[in-house]
């Protein structure tokens, strides 16, 4: 082995050893080659900053600055580079710059300032466009960048939206029930003796004709002539008790409390916590009160509907029904608990309470955020082992998925805007939800902004995004969705890298963005990298993606390298040591697991399909062999029974037997009026012969003649001695 190859191999094996011809990367400002174009984010149009819309009752609840400005000029102005479109883009860039420089601000303020700056020295057309654009922006709220605060703010905004909607509906139900119950009591009171006293009657009358009436006489008349019909004491007491519970609830703020125009006697509960242990304690402490409220709403519903039956429902409410506060309806009706845990690994003290809550299906929404996932790799592992200091976010989300009834979303802050519908669904989900988010704001990636760090983590499969929705279907493939990951069917996303060589000739080659590329951005991993000068590039080097794709059996045939660029755009090959390469291999294996769970290239499914196809083909082959030559399949034609034919299995009635086609009876009363013991109605008020001996054959024939729809058949007489039979039999002939 030559000396230069020896140096490469030694670095690969040890990382820290840099032999002749290899250079340290510290201080070079290198970053993965595919990130060469992303230097100044303020010059780019992308998903941030993000507007968190103030209003709680209108959509959208969050919108990117780019989408907002697109909506102002779309669609007629987008197709061509119009003046207004050009001005809109300038205005958007101006706002983005200011927001990124100042760490956010309110849109209305930033917009006004940007319009003022751009209007200076501008011509009439541009000023007109700026004014029109400013007045077209109907939304306001804080503009937030993709930083460490974003996950918490976005989740809180979505949760507040969902809870506000829930509170609105439930509060309306409570208000309606309260009013209806009060009406019952008021009507009862008005009907009572006190309600019909002279003064009360007088005060309920208008001024104009008050003197024309003698309210004393009217009171006497009402109290003596009308029967008393007041509520039973038991019901009145029950209604009062229900009203007390409904009015004393603390789970929803009344609209008056919201407006500041009035308030509840007791401060409404808070549902935001920073510890799952605190949240579960609060939930359990409030549960009896919540159950009482839920039961009161159900009782009140029955009461106002007039359907409450004390002899049945009292017992059911005391012991016979499931707790309505915790059933499916209760979970969608009452508040959920939001837990925003401090960023970092899940502390050991939180692991137990959190998983108990999730497994118990409590209505809890947990945000677990991490800012740093790229630390120095450990031996044979992609990241730090879980130790006494807690669990990595990815392990928590993975474990939560196995509980099967928890809504799980794992994503990065760079992708949160795109995943906002998943965030909203998680907040609206009736059971527990867990959100694991990597913010990229750990400050360990040199000059890379958090947005790029987070995007790189997702792109490199180090922190893939996925959602597990228990309501999305019966199996993993339908519940687990990984399609938001770029090029999910591949091990790594592959993009074309275009560059020019020393002779200014353009080159382009596909480059995979691997986990090693992401880890190489972390200054703490610089020791595992070594730059190979261009004159030392040789055939013994291979991209990390190619090396990782090989089976790991000892020493690879070629030493892995990464393509990186310096601040001036120069492309470098940087050796990645075994530590980074093995980490990339580990992340690739984990990605395969996640991908399979999401039904992308699911090996089990593919195997099942192959087996089923083989079995089907074998069965078909057997069927074809079994067919005699030139067999014609007979066609079975279902034909309706001919008119008048009696269907098989149905016995035709005897013409001698008196009968009524009861199902055709039109309830016209004719036969009943003739003899209501012989003919009677059944439960559907249709006639049948109840007692043949209760009447004469003459009555039977008369009924047949009067029957409006001719469904009475007199048959033969049961009394052969009845007078006038000969004539009666002749009249009956047409009805037999």
């Amino acid at each position, binding site marked *: 082995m030559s000396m230069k190859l020896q140096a490469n191999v030694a670095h690969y094996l040890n990382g820290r050893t840099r032999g002749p011809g290899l250079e340290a990367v510290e201080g070079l400002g290198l970053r993965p080659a595919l990130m060469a174009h992303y230097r100044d984010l303020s010059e780019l149009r992308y998903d941030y900053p993000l507007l968190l819309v103030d209003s709680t009752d209108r959509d959208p609840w969050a919108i990117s600055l780019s989408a907002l400005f697109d909506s102002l000029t779309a669609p007629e102005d987008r197709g061509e580079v119009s003046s207004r479109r050009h001005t809109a883009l300038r205005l958007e860039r101006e706002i983005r710059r200011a927001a990124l420089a100042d760490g956010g601000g309110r849109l209305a303020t930033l917009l006004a300032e940007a319009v003022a700056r751009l209007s200076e020295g501008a011509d009439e057309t541009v000023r007109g466009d700026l004014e029109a654009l400013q007045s077209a922006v109907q939304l306001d709220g804080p503009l937030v960048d993709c930083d460490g605060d974003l996950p918490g703010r976005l989740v809180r905004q979505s949760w507040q939206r969902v809870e506000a909607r829930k509170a609105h509906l439930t509060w*309306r139900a409570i208000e309606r029930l309260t009013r209806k119950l009060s009406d019952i009591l008021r009507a009862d009171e008005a009907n009572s003796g006190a309600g019909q006293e002279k003064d009360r009657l007088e005060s309920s009358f208008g001024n104009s004709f008050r003197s024309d009436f003698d309210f004393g006489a009217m009171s006497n008349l009402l109290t003596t002539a009308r029967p008393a019909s007041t509520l039973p004491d038991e019901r009145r007491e029950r209604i009062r008790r229900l009203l007390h519970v409904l009015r004393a609830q603390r789970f929803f703020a009344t609209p008056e409390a919201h407006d500041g125009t009035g308030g509840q006697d007791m401060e409404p509960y808070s549902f935001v916590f920073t510890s799952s242990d605190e949240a579960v304690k609060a939930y359990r402490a409030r549960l009896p009160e919540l159950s009482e409220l839920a039961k009161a709403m159900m009782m009140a519903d029955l009461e106002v509907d007039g359907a409450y039956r004390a002899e049945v429902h009292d017992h059911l409410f005391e012991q016979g029904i499931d707790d309505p506060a915790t059933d*499916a309806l209760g979970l969608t009706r009452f508040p959920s608990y939001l837990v925003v845990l401090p960023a970092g690994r899940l502390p050991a003290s939180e692991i137990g309470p959190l998983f108990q809550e999730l497994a118990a299906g409590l209505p809890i929404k947990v945000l677990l955020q991490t800012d740093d996932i790229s630390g120095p790799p450990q031996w044979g592992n992609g990241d730090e082992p879980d130790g006494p200091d807690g669990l990595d976010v990815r392990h928590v989300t993975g474990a939560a998925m196995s509980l099967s009834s928890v809504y799980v979303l794992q994503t990065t802050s760079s992708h949160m805007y795109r995943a906002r519908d998943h965030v909203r669904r998680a907040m609206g989900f009736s059971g527990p939800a867990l959100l694991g988010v990597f913010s990229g704001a750990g400050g360990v990636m040199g000059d890379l902004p958090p947005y790029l760090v987070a995007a790189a983590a997702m792109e490199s499969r180090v922190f893939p995004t996925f959602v597990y929705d228990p*309501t999305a279907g019966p199996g993993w493939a339908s519940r687990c969705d990984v399609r938001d990951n770029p090029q999910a069917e591949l091990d790594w996303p592959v993009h074309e890298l275009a560059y020019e060589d020393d002779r200014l000739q353009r080159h382009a080659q596909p480059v995979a963005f691997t986990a090693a590329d992401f880890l190489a951005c972390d200054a703490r991993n610089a020791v595992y990298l070594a730059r190979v000068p261009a004159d030392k590039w040789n055939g013994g080097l291979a991209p990390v993606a190619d090396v990782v794709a090989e089976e790991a059996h000892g020493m690879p045939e070629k030493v892995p390298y990464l393509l990186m660029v310096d601040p001036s755009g120069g492309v470098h090959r940087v050796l990645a040591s075994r530590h980074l390469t093995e980490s990339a291999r580990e992340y690739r294996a984990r990605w395969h697991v996640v991908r399979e769970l999401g039904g992308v290239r699911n090996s089990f499914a593919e195997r099942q399909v192959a087996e089923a196809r083989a079995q089907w083909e074998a069965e078909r082959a057997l069927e074809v062999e079994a067919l005699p030559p030139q067999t014609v399949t007979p066609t079975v034609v279902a034909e309706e029974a001919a008119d008048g034919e009696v269907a098989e299995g*149905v016995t035709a009635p005897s013409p001698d037997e008196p009968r009524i086609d009861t199902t*055709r009876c039109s*309830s016209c009363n004719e036969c009943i009026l003739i003899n209501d013991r012989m003919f009677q109605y059944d439960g559907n008020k249709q006639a049948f012969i109840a007692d043949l001996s209760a009447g004469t054959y003459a009555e039977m024939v008369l009924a047949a003649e009067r029957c*409006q729809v*001719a469904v009475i058949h007199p048959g033969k007489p049961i009394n052969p001695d009845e007078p006038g039979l000969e004539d009666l039999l002749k009249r009956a002939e047409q009805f037999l």
Partner: protein
Amino acid sequence: MTETSTFSAAECLLRTYEEQHDIEAFQKGVPRWCDGCGDNAILASIQRLCRDEGLRPEKTVFVSGIGCSSRLPHYMKTYGFHGIHGRALPIAEGVRMARPDLNVFVNTGDGDCCSIGTAHWIHAIRYNMNMTVMVHDNLIYGLTKMQVSPTTPQGLKTNTTPTGAYLEALQPLTVTLGVQNVSFVAQVVDWIPEVLYDVLLAAHRHRGLSFIRIVQRCPEFLPRLLDPWVRDPKTVLMLNHERGLQISPELAGVYTNRLEHDPLDINRAREIASETEVIPVGILYHNPAVPCYEETRRNGQLHSPELVGRGLAAQMDKFTIWPDDGAAQDA
């Protein structure tokens, strides 16, 4: 909110114990219709429907206008409103708006609905409010002793047309099917009670205005007029479809003249409704997607006395003259 289940076992359990009523619970008094009148068959089917659907008498209201048919609310032990001539539908609409929790039925006749009440009929179809409308069409004014009605066949002699009805009869089905927002149209005859019941059931379950024309015999004034159709099952065209009515095997053995008709096909429904040789029986048109007026107008606000008071005050203020250019108003 997610699309997760909101099933509450507790709520279902509580409602399980709702009071059940037998058919007698809906019967009141002895009907004073003529012997053999087709109204008896309609009344029996309605009472059966109320029992089978578990309707609560205090949550059910029958509204009628004037005529033989309009006596029906008197014989139902529910709420009832025997209205004025031709105005059954606007009264029912008012009931529906004020009390959306009630089951609303309308019983009207060919004179009540198709003559003096025609304007209300057309607009009730267009409003599509959730109610079941039964037009008892006996082709004559029976209560006032045999005067011509809008549906009286041309040439029929009546007390007001002694030489025969001058005009071609109005066809309630084709008119109804020509109105925008129509959502349910059916035709039945009183002498096939099984189908009458089935159509009533489908109509009651339909969310919107269900219009049922019930061709009905008048044994007092037109005793033989419908005999050809009553006596010969082939003159009845049974409409059958998986989305419409599916007649029983027993009935299928009698009524062999059947037609497979998709109730969503309004053009075909109009053609069928125009038939004169046979009487089509079944559901001609059924579109559950048509919105109900009362639901589109609901603003979600609780109709509290305060809200009504504010609304009234606002209306009154329009006619108030404020001194000092509104200073008092501002105060």
